[in-house]
Every structure is written in structure tokens, then in C-alpha cells.
């Protein structure tokens, strides 16, 4: 009895397993392709979304993987690029790239689809850190579509005002992804237009307009010979792309009304284009915000008995927006107001004596409420401001401005003091920098 039970049980078990295995096998014929498609779309979904309809990937799609770069034939791939996929039918490539700006707590993950000819099919953001305040898509929902159909030159692709860091980081990431493809001869390099090349010169020519190489500008309406124009967010000046004859030129006007003209190679060609300078200066003058009045008031407050305020015309293109010389008793002093980029734009005032040593340093607001609230309590602000006193161009290293835990404020103070020294130098040379 027991024996037959055992045999019966085992037989029954075997039958059950066999029946279900057969059923599963049968069902698998039907479901396997569906499951495979599901798995593929989960894996390639974000990539397929940036490629034209009908695109697909095969088993060898992954041609570069940042996890194991040595296994790839691609070289010179920047670290921001995490993976490169080749589309199965030769349509083009899909690139996964990350972007980090100083505001992002986590990198933005971006999928970029590029045709074999080097034109962008589409680009999308797959993940984004959740600080929505800096989400540039919210400010300009159309921004991503400005990339569509562009080649690596990214003609007419700008940044989003108010989200400069995030959008610049995004643009840089796309550029790096394109460059990785170009470096490996997968796509052709796009040709940049003259005005693009000129605008790229701007951070080096007009340092006051940029922060860490990122332009801090907004577009303004152009007129006459101007193709386009930008205004510095810190009001340190203007830059215009202008044409004269066949030439496309960059005209920069600083906060003191000094204008300079540069050609595509970055040569100073001001003398040959005096009329352009006049036109640009007129335009700038009409749009410029003057900081002389608040600066003078501040200098008078900082230096008791300051008199005989004289505005100094500067031809520096830094963050300095106001400069005055004045007398306290017999002694001459020089006051500069620089608007550098910290957490927000900072108004920094630096007073130097005739020998070029710092007498006073002040800032309208050293720490912004949005940030550093803990540092705010810890830092002895008057002592910090006093710590600059006595420094000269020779003893100034930039490290003097460091505040632990407040990188952005440190950087802004560093920039402002450096610019003040440069401005002082310019004054000594009769208003010009050498």
C-alpha cells in the first residue's frame, strides 16, 4: 500500500512537472518575443526616443561603455559620456551623457541621438536632480528643441536666462558627446559661423561677463549694423556682433563706455572700425545702468572725510563697474566697485591707497539668504573684510579670499579683488591695461 502510494506520488509529480513544463514551453513560444521586446525597450527606451521612428539596436549596439572603456575601439571619450550606441541600420548614434553644474546635487542624465551625417535627431533629459528652481526646461520648455537638426557647431543654440548654469552644463554635455563622435571619425564636424566663433572669444576678451568661462549675459535687441547683442547680467558692459562690409566683428563696450573691436581671430581691430565703436557705444549708453552713485556713497561711508570724488574712465573689461579717485585730507585713494558672481551677483567695494595697498574692503551682501546660512553665523564678517587690508598686487594670492564651506562667495571675492587690482594698474597706466 505504502509502496504503491509512493510510486503513485512520484508518477503524479512527474506528470504535473511535465504538463506544466510543456505548457510553459508552449506559452514561451508566444511570450518570448514579447518579453524580449519589453526588455529591449526598457534598456533602449530613452535611446530610441531620441532617434527617428524605426530605429533599432542589435546585440553589438553598445560601442562604448564608460564602465569598461578598454573594451571599446573609441578613444578620447570625455568622462561625461557614459555610453555610445550604434543604431542597427546605420541611421546614426545614440549617446548617453551626463552634465554637472555647480548647482546640481546629482548629474543630469541626457540621451542624445545623432545622425550618421552629424545632425542631432533629438535630445532629452532622462533624469534630473529634483531642485526644480534650476530646471531650465520649466523656464524655457522649447529650449531642447533648439538643438534639433543642428550639427556640432550648435548654431543659434544659446542658454536659458535665469538658468545659465544648468543650461550651460547641458550644452557643454551635448558638445562633449558630439566631440567624442567627431574625435572617433564617426560623424563630421560642423562648421561654426563667424558670429559663433566671435561669441566664443567673449569670455577671454570680456572677463567680467563670464563666470568660470560661462557667459552671464542676456540678449538685447539689436539695431543698425548689429546682428545680435548681449548685456552682462552684472551690468559690466555689452557685446555686439556687428558687420561692416564683408567682415563680421565683435564689439565690446565696458561699463565706462570704452569700446573695442575684435575680428574672428581675436585681434584687436578697434582703430579700423571707429564708426562701429561709436554706434555700439551709443547703443550701450542708452541701456547702461550706472553704479557710480551708490559706489560714491559707499566710498564716502567707508572713508570718513572723503572728498573731491573723480570718476575714472577705465578700459578694462572686468567685473568693475564703477571707479573713483578721491581725497581724504592730503592722501589720494582709489575706490572700485566690482560686481562679481557669487551665489548671486555681489557688489564688492575695494579702496586702495596711492601705493596700491588695500585700505578697505566691503560687500553689499557677503552671504545670500539662500545659501550658507550656517556659514553666515560662523564667519566673522568684519574680520573677514579686514583681512584684505594691506594687501597689494604683489602680496595678493587669491587664497586670502577663501572661506571654508563657501566656495562661491570665496570665488566672487577673489574675482572682485583681482579685478580691482587690475583696474588700479590701469589707472596707474593712464587708464589702460598693459
Amino acid at each position: 500500500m505504502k509502496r504503491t502510494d509512493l510510486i503513485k506520488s512520484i508518477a503524479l509529480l512527474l506528470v504535473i512537472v511535465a504538463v506544466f513544463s510543456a505548457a510553459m514551453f508552449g506559452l514561451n513560444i508566444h511570450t518570448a518575443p514579447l518579453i524580449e521586446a519589453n526588455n529591449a525597450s526598457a534598456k533602449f527606451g530613452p535611446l530610441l526616443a531620441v532617434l527617428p521612428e524605426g530605429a533599432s539596436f542589435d546585440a553589438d549596439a553598445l560601442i562604448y561603455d564608460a564602465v569598461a572603456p578598454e573594451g571599446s575601439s573609441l578613444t578620447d571619450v570625455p568622462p561625461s559620456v557614459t555610453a555610445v550606441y550604434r543604431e542597427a541600420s546605420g541611421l546614426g548614434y545614440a549617446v548617453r551623457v551626463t552634465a554637472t553644474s555647480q548647482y546640481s546635487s546629482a548629474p543630469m542624465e541626457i540621451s542624445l541621438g545623432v545622425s550618421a551625417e552629424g545632425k542631432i535627431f533629438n535630445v532629452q533629459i532622462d533624469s534630473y536632480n529634483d531642485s526644480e528652481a534650476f530646471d531650465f526646461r520649466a523656464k524655457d520648455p522649447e529650449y531642447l528643441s533648439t538643438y534639433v537638426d543642428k550639427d556640432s557647431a550648435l548654431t543659434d543654440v544659446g542658454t536659458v536666462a535665469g538658468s545659465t548654469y544648468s543650461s550651460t552644463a547641458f550644452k557643454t554635455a551635448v558638445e562633449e558627446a558630439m566631440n567624442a563622435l567627431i574625435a572617433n571619425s564617426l560623424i563630421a564636424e560642423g562648421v561654426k559661423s563667424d558670429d559663433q566663433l566671435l561669441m566664443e572669444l567673449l569670455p577671454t576678451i570680456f572677463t567680467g561677463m563670464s563666470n568660470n568661462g560661462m557667459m552671464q549675459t542676456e540678449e538685447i535687441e539689436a539695431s543698425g549694423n548689429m546682428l545680435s547683442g548681449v548685456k552682462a547680467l552684472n551690468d559690466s558692459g555689452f557685446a555686439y556682433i556687428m558687420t561692416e562690409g564683408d567682415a563680421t566683428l565683435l564689439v565690446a563696450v565696458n561699463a565706462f563706455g570704452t569700446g573695442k573691436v575684435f575680428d574672428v581671430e581675436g585681434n584687436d581691430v578697434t582703430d579700423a572700425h571707429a564708426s562701429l565703436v561709436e554706434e555700439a557705444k551709443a547703443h550701450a549708453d542708452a541701456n547702461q545702468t550706472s553704479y557710480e552713485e551708490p559706489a560714491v556713497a559707499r566710498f564716502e561711508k567707508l572713508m570718513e572725510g572723503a572728498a573731491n570724488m573723480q570718476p575714472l574712465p577705465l578700459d578694462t573689461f572686468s567685473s568693475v563697474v564703477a571707479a573713483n579717485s578721491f581725497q581724504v585730507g592730503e592722501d589720494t585713494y582709489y575706490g572700485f566697485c566690482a560686481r562679481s558672481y557669487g551665489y548671486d551677483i555681489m557688489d564688492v567695494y575695494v579702496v586702495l591707497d596711492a601705493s596700491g595697498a588695500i585700505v578697505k574692503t566691503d560687500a553689499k551682501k557677503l552671504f545670500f539668504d539662500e545659501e550658507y546660512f550656517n556659514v553666515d553665523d560662523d564667519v566673522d564678517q568684519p574680520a573677514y573684510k579686514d583681512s584684505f587690508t594691506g594687501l597689494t598686487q604683489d602680496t595678493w594670492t587669491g587664497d586670502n579670499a577663501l572661506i571654508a564651506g563657501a566656495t562661491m562667495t570665496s570665488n566672487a571675492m577673489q574675482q572682485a579683488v583681482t579685478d580691482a587690482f587690475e583696474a588700479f594698474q590701469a589707472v596707474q597706466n593712464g587708464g589702460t591695461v598693459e
Partner: protein
Amino acid sequence: MKNATKSSISHKEAAYLLPLGAGFVMASSADLRAALGMGAAVILATFLSAVVISALRKIIPSRAHLPIYILIITGFVSLIDMMMQAYFPNVVNMLGVHLAALAVSAVPYRNAEDVAGENVETTTIKTALETGFLFTLIMVLCALIREVLGNASIWGVSIEFLKDYRVSALSGVFGGYLVLAIVFAVIRTIHDKTTTKKEGTD
């Protein structure tokens, strides 16, 4: 009279099965889609295995009933798993290993033990379906609370105005325990009230 005792017995059965299924209930009640997916899987697995087991009950030797029941349940769960992977991959992703673990869950197993003892096939089907639907109801209720309040979304679509008020702990592990405890307590209270009323009118 006979009917009344029958139904109260099956209610009791479902209630005693609940702790056994608490694991997958909590695991799949963070999202409404997962809850409904798991609910469907539980209903199907319980129902199909009950039908097969009650049909085979005469030829299953009692000493070997455990492996046989479990293999039958596993077979159905595997088939359901495959279908869901093909048609609802998102749900399968959310459920993860819990869908496969349903194969060895005590719920369909105890249910199978219960129905194998009964003779009428219609009651078998009824008990199995009741068990399945009770679990689905509980999972859906928990999921509604956890997804809406914990994740500020419903059916995966986010509810904007709730975003700032969400209690993210509810969609986490502790939320699973808390919400199930409350939902179960409420269901039991309502159930007790209605049955005492019925008895009163009898």
C-alpha cells in the same frame, strides 16, 4: 441558515489566511498598478490551482499532497508570470521576486488544502475566488492610500497639488505595515458590525 454558516466560515478562512499573505500584500501595495497586478495573479493562481486540485483530489495520495499542491501552484504562477512579463512588464518590474514567491506563498496552498476537503466543486470555486478577491480588495485599498498620500500619484500619474504634502514614509517599508494594519482593522470593524446586525435581525 445553512448558507449563513457557510459564508461565515469562508470569511473566517479568508481572515486566517491574511497574515500568511501579509508579505506580498505589503510588497505590492505601494503602487495601484502593482496591487492590481498582484491581485490578478493571486486570484488566478488561487482559483486555477483550486480547480485542478479539487479535480485531482481523489488520486492525490494524502501523504504526498504538499509537494503536489505546491508544484501545481508553482506551475500556474509561472504561467501567470510569463503572461504578465509579456503584457505588463512594468508591473512585473514593480513586483520583482514577489510574483515568483507567490508560488510558495501559504495563501494558495492553504486555500488548496481547504478546498480539497470539500466535495462540491462550485463551493471550491467560490472559496478560491473569495480569497483572491479579498486579497485584491485589501491590496487595492492599501495601494490607494500609500500611492496617493505617500507618492502623490495615482496609477503612476502624479497629482501636482499633493506633491508638497506627501508622506513619503507611507510608500516605504514602514508604510506597508502601518497601512495594512489600519486597513485590516477598519475592514474587520465594518465586517463585525454588519454580521452582528444580520444576526440581530435573524
